[in-house]
C-alpha cells in the first residue's frame, strides 16, 4: 500500500521480520535488547527533526505491521519535539513525551534563587517506565515551556494498554528539570503528530490483519470449499480492504498536507482510523473463527494494539469534535469552503508560527 517512504519501510520491515521469525509471536515480547541495539546502530532510534513526517510515519507503519514491542515511535516523537524545542537528548538515551493527555497538568515554579521545580501529574505516558528521560510541556505563569526530566526523579504507577504495552501514570513532586526550553512546538501540534503516528502504525497493523485474513480464508476449508468461496466471507474481506484503503488514504493525505490543513487532516485521519479499524478488527476475528481468539495466534498482537491506538493521543470522538470546531466557527463561510479553501484564502492565509512537521 502506501508506505510514506518505501525505502525506509522496507529496511525496517526486513529487520523486524528476521527478529520475528526467530522469536515467534507474543503479545509483548520481553524487552528485545538485541533488536533495540540493532535499531540504534541503524539510526532508527535517533530519528528526530532530521527526518520528515513521512519517514517517521513509514517507521511507525512498520512497527504496526510487525507489532514491535519497543518504544521506537514514541522516542521518534519525543526527539522530534525535543530538537524543535532545543532540548538536548543524548543518542543512547531513551526519551518519551509526557503530559500530552487531555487533563494532564504540570506546573513549574521558580524559587527566589531562580531555580525551577515542577509539580503535577501526567497520565498514561507511553513507555515511561522504560525511558531514561522525559520531556514534557510545563505551565509557567501564562506560558508553556518544554522541560527535560530524569525518569529516576519521577514517581510511577505502572500500567499497560490493551496490548500490554507500558502506559504509566506519573506523579511529579517538586522535580528539578535538567533543562528548560522554548514554547515551541505547540502542545497541540505534538499531540496531533502523535495521533498521526498512531494512525500510521494502525495502517501497518490493519494491513497485517487483512492479509492474515485473506490467507486464512484461502487455506481454511469448510463444507468442502475454502472460506474465501463464501460470499458472506468475501464481503467481510472487502470491508476490511476498504477499511485499510480509507485509513491509509487519510493518513497519506495528512502526511503530505499543505501546512494550513495539517491539523484538520490529522483530525480526519484519527477519526477514520478509529472508525474503520473498529470495523476491521471485528471482521478479522470473525473470519478467523475460534483460532483467532487464542493467545497463540498472532492476530491479537495487531488487533489489541489497534483497540488501544484508536484512543491514544485523542479518541475518534475527541478528534471529531476538534475537526467540527475547526470547520464551524462564527465567521466561517461554511464547512465546504473551509475544507476546500479558495486560492486567494490559501495564498493569504496566516498560519501563525510555521507549524513544524
Amino acid at each position, binding site marked *: 500500500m502506501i508506505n510514506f517512504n518505501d525505502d525506509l519501510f522496507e529496511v525496517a520491515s526486513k529487520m523486524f521480520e528476521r527478529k520475528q521469525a526467530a522469536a515467534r509471536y507474543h503479545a509483548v515480547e520481553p524487552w528485545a535488547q538485541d533488536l533495540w541495539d540493532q535499531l540504534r546502530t541503524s539510526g532508527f532510534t535517533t530519528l528526530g527533526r532530521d527526518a520528515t513526517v513521512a519517514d517517521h510515519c513509514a517507521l511507525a507503519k512498520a512497527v504496526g505491521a510487525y507489532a514491535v514491542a519497543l518504544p521506537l515511535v514514541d522516542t521518534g516523537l519525543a526527539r522530534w519535539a525535543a530538537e524543535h524545542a532545543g532540548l538536548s537528548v543524548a543518542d543512547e538515551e531513551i526519551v518519551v513525551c509526557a503530559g500530552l493527555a487531555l487533563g494532564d497538568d504540570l506546573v513549574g515554579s521558580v524559587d527566589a534563587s531562580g531555580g525551577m521545580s515542577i509539580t503535577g501529574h501526567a497520565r498514561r505516558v507511553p513507555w515511561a517506565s522504560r525511558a531514561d528521560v522525559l520531556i514534557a510541556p510545563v505551565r509557567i505563569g501564562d506560558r508553556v515551556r518544554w522541560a527535560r526530566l530524569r525518569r529516576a526523579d519521577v514517581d510511577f504507577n505502572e500500567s499497560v494498554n490493551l496490548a500490554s504495552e507500558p502506559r504509566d501514570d506519573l506523579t511529579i513532586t517538586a522535580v528539578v528539570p535538567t533543562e528548560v526550553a522554548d514554547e515551541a512546538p505547540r502542545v497541540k501540534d505534538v499531540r496531533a503528530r502523535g495521533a498521526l503516528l498512531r494512525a500510521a502504525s494502525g495502517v501497518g497493523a490493519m494491513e497485517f490483519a487483512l492479509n492474515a485474513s485473506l490467507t486464512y480464508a484461502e487455506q481454511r476449508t469448510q463444507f468442502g470449499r475454502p472460506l474465501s468461496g463464501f460470499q458472506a466471507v468475501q464481503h467481510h474481506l472487502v470491508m476490511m480492504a476498504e477499511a485499510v484503503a480509507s485509513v491509509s*488514504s487519510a493518513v497519506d493525505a495528512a502526511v503530505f498536507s499543505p501546512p494550513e490543513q495539517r491539523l484538520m487532516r490529522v*483530525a480526519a485521519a484519527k477519526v477514520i482510523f478509529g472508525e474503520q479499524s473498529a470495523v476491521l478488527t471485528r471482521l478479522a476475528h470473525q473470519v478467523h473463527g475460534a483460532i483467532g481468539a487464542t493467545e497463540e495466534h498472532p492476530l491479537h498482537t495487531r488487533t489489541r494494539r489497534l483497540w488501544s491506538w484508536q484512543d491514544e493521543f485523542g479518541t475518534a470522538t475527541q478528534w471529531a469534535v476538534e475537526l467540527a470546531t475547526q470547520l464551524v466557527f462564527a465567521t466561517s463561510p461554511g464547512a465546504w469552503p473551509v475544507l476546500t479553501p479558495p486560492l486567494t484564502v490559501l495564498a493569504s492565509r496566516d498560519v501563525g508560527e510555521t507549524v513544524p512537521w
Partner: protein
Amino acid sequence: MITFPSSELTDDELALRDQVRAFMADYRAQGHRLQLGINAEPDPEFSKLISRRGWVGMSIPVEYSGHGRTAVDRFVVVEEMLAAGAPISAHWVGDRQTAQMLLRFGTEAQKRRFLPRIVTSDVFFCLGMSEPESGSDLASVRTRATRTDGGWILNGQKVWTSGAQYADYAVTLCRTEPLGQSKHVGLSQLLVDLKADGVTVSPIRLLNGAHHFNEVFFDDVFVPDELLLGKPGDGWHQVTSELAHERSGPDRFLSVMPIVQLLYERQRARDLDLEMSEMLGRLFAMYMTFRSMSLSIARRLDAGELPAVEAALVKDMGTEFENQAVAVLRRLVNAEIDPRGGEFEALLADAVITAPTFTLRGGTNEVLRGVIAKDLIRNRRRVA
C-alpha cells in the same frame, strides 16, 4: 494492490475551482432550487450555460472541439457543482462516460459526429443497459440486433433508463450474435436515436414521484451501421472498460452535501453541542477521505490508468456513507420532516426517500464487493 496515493490540487486547478464556486454562488443568488446530485431534475439550459464556460466535455481533445483538459479538472468542476446543488443531470452521462467510451472505442466518424456536440450540450445520452430480466447479471441481456442492409434491426426492452425522456441517444447494450458458450461474447453497443421509428419511451415514477427513469421499447428499430459503437462483438469489453470513469467520481459521495451546507447555515447562529460537533466532525472526516480517494483516481486516469477496482471501492464506501450521512442529518435535525416545510426540509425529505437508490444505480454494492473480492483473492494467490 489497492492503492490511493494522495495528491493536492495545483494552483491552476484551485483557480478553476474558484471560478466554478463564484459562478455557482451567482447562480444560486438568482433563486434556483438546490438539487441532489445525479437525481437532479434535468435542466438542458443549465447544461448549455456551463458548456459555454467550457465545463462540459473538458477532457475531450481539442481536435474534437473539446477543451483538452484533464480528468482532475473535471473532478474539480463536478465536485464544486455537486456541493452547490447544481442541476447537472442532462449532460451527466455524456460528460462522464459516453465521451470517454467514444474516445476509446468509437470510429473516427463517430468521434467527429458526437464529441463536439457533447462539449456544447447539443446532444444528450442515456444508458440502455438494464432489462426486466437482466439487472446485476447484465451480460444476460436479451435485446438483440440482427443484420440488415446497411445496419441492424433492434428488438427488445430496456428498463430504469434514466433520462430517456429527454436524451437524444441511448447507448444500448444488445446481443448481435446468438448466445453461445460465453454470455460475454457477441454483445455490442448501439447508439440508438430515441426519435427513431419503433422506439417507445414510457415513464416510471421513482418512489418520490419524480420522473427520473423510464422503460424503453425497441420494436424493429433500424440502426444504421455507423451507429454501432466501435466493432461488433466488442460490447462487453467496452462496458467493463469504462467503469473506472463511471464509478469513481464525486457523484458517489456528494449527493447530500447541499443539505449539509444548508444545515450549517441554519446552525451557525446556534451553539453546537458536543454531540452535534462529534456527528459533524465524523461526517466531515469521511468527506475529506472520500474526496482524496476520488481525486487520487482522477490523477491515475490522467496517467492513462483505469483503476476499476479502486473505483468500485470508492463507490461502495461512498454510497454507504451517503446513507449514513442522511441518518446523521436526521439525528441532527431530531424532528419530524415536513416535505413542504421549506427548502431544507424538502431536500432532506427527498434525500431520505431516494437514498435507497444510491447503493443500486450503476451496479449494486453487493456486486461491487464481488468485483473487489475477486481482485483481493487473485492478488493474494499471486503473492502466495
